[in-house]
Structures are given as C-alpha cells and as structure tokens.
C-alpha cells in the first residue's frame, strides 16, 4: 500500500465518522448507516468477485445466513446479541465454504458459477419463507432492548460508528490480504487458473478460503442490518436485491480495488437519492439508474469510479491500488 492510498482511506473514514457531528438529520444518518451496511456486504463480494474473479449472483445466501442465524439464536435460544454476531459471521463463512466446495469442485466458473450461487440463495430464501422455525413469511422481529450489551443503540450516531468500524475492519482485512501470498494467489487465479496451477497454486483451496472470508464479511453486514432494523424476513435477508447491491457497489466503485465497495455504495445510493429528489417518488426509478450505471460502467469504465478518477490524474499513482 502506498502512503497515498493510506491517506485517502484515512480521510474517507474520518469524513464519514464526523458526519453525525455535522448533522442531526435522521434521514441523513439512516442513509449513511444503510450505505455502510451495503458497503460491507460489497466488500465481501469484492474479495471473491473482484479480487479472485469469481462473480457471484447469490451473496444474499451469506447476508441472509448472518441475519437469520443471529436472530434465531437471540429469539429462540436467548443467546446474547454479540455472540449472535460472532455465530452469524462464522455461519456465513461455513455456508460460503460449503457452496464453494460443491461448485468449485464441480469446476463451475463464470456464468455457471453465477447461476449456481443465485440458485443456492433462492433455495435458502424459499426455506426461510416456508419453515415455521424461521418465522415463515411473517419474518422475525427482535425485541427492542436498547443497550450496548444487546448491540442496540439509542442513537443512530453510535450505530453509524459501529458500522463504520466494521467497514474499516473490512478495509484492513482487504489490504492485508492484498499484501500477502494469499492475495497474489487470488489475483493469479482470477487472471489465469492454468498458469497459477503450474506455479504450484492450489486453486481449489485458494478459492475456498476466498469464498469463506467473503461469506463471513457479507454475513456481518446481514447481522448489522438485523441489529439496525430489528426485523428481517426471507425477502429482505435472502432476497435477490442484496446480491445485486453487493455486486453493483463493488463493480461501480472499481472491481477488485480495496476502496471500490465503499466508493461504489456511496456513489450508487447518492445517485439513487438524487434521482428520487429529481423525479419524485416514482417507484423503481432509483433502481433504473443503478441498472443504467452498471451498463455504462461495463461499457465505458471497467475500472469503475476509482478507475475514472485515476484517469483524470494520470501523473499520480492509482489511489485504489489493486487489492
């Protein structure tokens, strides 16, 4: 990591951290918290889909698992919320490993891998929607019980800092990975599996580690969502929307770049809010913009927003740095 990158990251995090001191608007703070949760889910996607090149269309499987495991442990077994958080993250990693083991061992790549992840997420959604244990279609409602021990905060600012802490942790993990053998092997697998194998890279094991860490990060986002809104159902937790959000944020920010998910999440939702303000409350209009941005990014800016910024300042080093 260059000093330049570190400076940018510190500035960005600091800017988000001081936001609650500058505004007391609930709408603004809700917006930031929601975007941070998306960014965290997208950081998970980016490690697998961006750095390791295995595009998933089913990260809802991890988001939902994090949320449901934590909610069920709290509601059905009276487990503490922090322990629920840890268990949710662990289960996200495990679900990732299992899906990865099945699909990577079967040699699924590219479109096939995208489709199978989508199908896994849908199976989990249908199950969560149908079973009584998971609350069925009515979903699960956490009891409002404010307090640090319950991972519920009376002030939005405190929750914002918590979410920001997770995003910062995600950044540190991504940066650490980029600087190690594992990171180099991930990129090697993305660029050329055969060449990687010939150089002694155990491709299956590298991919499995990637999907497990990726699943854990996105599951953490699911738990945060649960703790913030205190309610989930199958459509929310395992819905296609979060798979798409995670993918979009990483792609739009700059695929494979450590800062990509955060930049992408804020860019997209900023654009979405602007569109809503401009076009009025027409349902779906913000999502139309997201779809349009995705097509434009693929067509004209494969490096995403960060890639565009780097092009604007050709003299300086890339501010995103390949993860």
């Amino acid at each position, binding site marked *: 990591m260059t000093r330049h990158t570190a400076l940018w990251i510190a500035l960005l995090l600091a800017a988000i951290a001081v936001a609650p001191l500058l505004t007391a608007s609930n709408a603004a703070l809700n917006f930031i918290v929601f975007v941070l949760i998306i960014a965290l889910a997208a950081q998970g996607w980016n490690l697998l889909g961006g750095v390791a090149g295995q595009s998933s269309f089913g990260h809802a499987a991890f988001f939902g698992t994090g949320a449901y495991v934590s909610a069920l442990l709290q509601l059905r077994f009276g487990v503490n919320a922090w322990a629920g958080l840890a268990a949710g993250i662990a289960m996200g990693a495990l679900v990732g490993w299992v899906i990865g083991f099945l699909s990577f061992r079967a040699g699924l790549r590219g479109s096939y891998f995208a489709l199978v992840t989508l199908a896994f997420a849908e199976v989990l959604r249908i199950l969560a929607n149908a079973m009584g244990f998971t609350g069925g279609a009515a979903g699960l409602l956490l009891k409002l019980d404010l307090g640090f021990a319950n991972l519920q905060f009376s002030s939005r600012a405190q929750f914002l800092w918590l979410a920001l802490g997770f995003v910062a942790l995600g950044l540190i993990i991504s940066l650490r990975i980029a600087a190690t*053998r594992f990171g*180099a092997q991930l990129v*090697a697998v993305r*660029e050329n599996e055969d060449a990687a194998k010939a150089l*002694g890279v155990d491709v299956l094991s590298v991919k499995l580690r990637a999907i497990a860490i990726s699943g854990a990060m996105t599951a953490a986002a699911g738990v945060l969502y649960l703790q913030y809104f205190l309610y989930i159902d199958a459509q929310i937790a395992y819905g296609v929307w979060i798979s798409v959000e995670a993918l979009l944020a990483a792609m739009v920010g700059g695929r494979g770049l450590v800062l990509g998910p955060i930049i992408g999440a804020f860019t997209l939702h900023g654009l979405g809010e602007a569109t809503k303000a401009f076009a009025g409350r027409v349902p779906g209009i913000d999502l139309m913009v997201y779809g349009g941005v995705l097509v434009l990014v693929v067509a004209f800016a494969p490096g995403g927003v960060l890639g565009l910024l780097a092009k604007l300042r050709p003299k300086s080093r890339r501010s995103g740095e390949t993860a």
Partner: protein
Amino acid sequence: MLEVRDITMRFGGLVAVGGASFSVPKGAIVGLIGPNGAGKTTLFAVIAGFLTPTAGSVRFEGDDITAMPTHRRAARGIARTFQIVQPFAGLDVRENIAVGAYLRHASASEAHRRAEAVAQRVGLGADLDKPAASLTVAGRKRLELARALATEPKLLLLDEVLAGLNPSEIRDIVPVIRAIRDEGVTILMIEHVMQAVMNLCEHVHVLAQGKLIAQGDPPSVCADPAVVEAYLGRGAAERLRLEASHA
C-alpha cells in the same frame, strides 16, 4: 529423473499420443521435437498434470506421479512454461514472478526479493514495475521463464520459449537457458527453432503423429530418414539423398 512410460492420450477417437516412452536424466537438457500436431504439447500437459493419460505412467525421482494434481507436482519440483504465454495481466512483472516464488517462500518481502533476483537472471531486471501486459513478445517469453524458475524447480519444462523471437533475441536467451541448466536444473524442451536445439540439447526425442519415431544426439537425429520424412513427407529422405548425390 523423469520417466515417461507407455503414455497414451486419447480424446474421443483421436489418439494424440500413442504409447510414448522416454526418460530424462538428471542434469540434462533434452529436446522434444516433431512436426506440428505431433502431440508434443499434449505430452507436456500429461507430464505437468494438466491431463490424466488414458494409459501409461509418469515417474519423477522414482515416484509414480501419474495421478498427482498439477500444483503438487510444482511443489515436488516440476515447473512448466506455456507455448501461448499466459501472464497475469492485472499484476506487474515483479508480482507475476513472485506468484512463482511464493511456492517456497511464504513472506511477501522474501518472495519479492527472489522475484527480483530471478528477473535479473533472465534479463527482466529493468522491467520489474511494468504491467505484465505491456511487455513485448520477447519480454513475455522471459516472464514465462522467470515465473517457472521462481518456483525453484528441479525439472523445467519449456514449451517453445523461443518461438516468435527474432534471431538476435534467440541469441540472447540461449545462454540464459544453458546457465539455468549449469546451476543444476534439468530441462526438457519442446522447440522448433533447430538452431537452438542443436546448440542446447544433448539428446533429442522426435514425436510424429503421437509416436516417438527417433532419438539420439541432434545431428544424428536430423540425418535420420524417418525424421526427415515425418517433417517433409513420404519419400522426402530418398529425394534429398538423390539430389545430394547428383549435385
């Protein structure tokens, strides 16, 4: 060091390699030549573990490795280059070579130091910070060689590392290959550039239509009528001999 026994590789009805056997002694540079489509690259893929042969076995340092996955063979000390160069486009030259070095060195700083040393050896010392995609064909061939070398192999499989290079580039890289051998790495190379084969190899195997048809030192193999016919067609050796005697 390497023993290939009765390797047969079928793709559906097509027999790409039919019962090939040969061995590569430790410390040698052995060539594998033959006309296009003879099955040389298929044989390489079998040795490196990319293909499981229909029949036959591959032994390395006395152990049967026929069923061993590619990455474990690399760990045992077999490295290969690809005929069609396959750089990791998203990484710079140093990082590309480091992927190979990571096989024996877990720490990033050590792997980068090894990568830089290997880059010096193959003449890429000035290009360490360049993106791999920006290298010329000759540069990419060197990168291919450097990455394989960075895994610190005992046996190096070179698949046409000289193809596509101009004569002066070939002249530059031949001594590099010889130096690698002199440091104790055994080399098996597929090569079309006969000048280099003559120059480098002590022993040559000739593959034609999936079968080994001749072997020996380079000059005698080139004079072998079966080899001449494999390259130039039936009756060619006879015609050449007649033309030579008429001249």
